[in-house]
């Protein structure tokens, strides 16, 4: 086989491999594994809620988009369609209960559904922000109960 043909074939093979890798690891990369990702911040539910209530902009800059481990006394569990939400209530407002709402990963729906109110739980999730009534955590898992 002539040298130039080998070079062209080599370039083509490398190109195909590069396209495959870009497709798999960039374009089609997996969502973060929120259950196993390590929390970048640990604090109590009271600390997180008060941070947003006292200075929303500062708290948003610090916590939005972060994976947070939270410890606090559970107020209730809400189940809406396929969502199970652990709710930590701190006050009453225009939307009724206001506090922290942690939407569970589907894998944790059953175990979260059996949690008892008033017990201390530790959850971990992705902080989506504060909507002027609640701090929203998504993709939550239960660390212990």
């Amino acid at each position: 086989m002539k040298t130039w043909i080998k070079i062209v074939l080599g370039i083509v093979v490398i190109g195909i491999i590069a396209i495959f890798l870009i497709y798999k690891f960039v374009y089609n990369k997996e969502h973060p594994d929120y259950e196993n990702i390590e929390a970048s911040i640990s604090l109590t539910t009271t600390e997180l809620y008060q941070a947003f209530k006292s200075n929303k902009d500062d708290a948003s800059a610090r916590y939005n988009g972060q994976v947070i481990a939270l410890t606090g006394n559970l107020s209730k569990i809400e189940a809406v369609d396929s969502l199970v939400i652990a709710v930590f209530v701190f006050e009453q407002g225009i939307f009724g209960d206001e506090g922290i709402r942690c939407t569970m990963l589907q894998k944790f729906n059953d175990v979260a559904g059996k949690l008892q109110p008033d017990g201390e739980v530790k959850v971990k999730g992705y902080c989506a922000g504060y909507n002027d009534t609640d701090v929203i955590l998504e993709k939550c898992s239960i660390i212990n109960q």
Partner: protein
Amino acid sequence: MRITIIFFIIALLSTISADAQKFITKTGYIKFYSDAPLEKIEAHNRQVNSALDFTTGGFVFKVLMKSFEFEKALMQEHFNENYVDSDKFPSATFVGTVTNIKDVNLSQDGIYDINVDGKLTMHGVTREIHEKGTFEVKQEKLLGKAKFNLVVADYKITIPGNVGNNISNTVEVTVEITLEKANL
């Protein structure tokens, strides 16, 4: 942004009056759908706050942009970082009125056409919108549905030329909410 938040809070507070019939949800659903030549993209958000004052028709929405979920992680990253800049503009807000709320009969189950006028704020831009939808009265709940289109450029969201065939300049927005009477 601060003005928007204050406006939102005032709008919510204004829905509370002694004889107000207030309906709320914290788990409303909004979907974005983009149909471009090379790709169809959907994003789902199931954490939408909404309140309706049935007495006046006052109607508000608030949605956190980081709560939108995409099939592909890369799309979600681009949405938050490159398009809606969710660190700087973390939420979208609608404040408006169901102008024909008097046509909805709470004591008669059924589907009622509604007209909604108001201001949608997203990506730091506020624009008037006028859309149609339905309220279904069912067992003392209001199931609201609407579907409409938004031109992304209207909200100063720029689609780079190199992904012009992947993302549509107009996105279809689907809203589905189940409002329950508030016990406040």
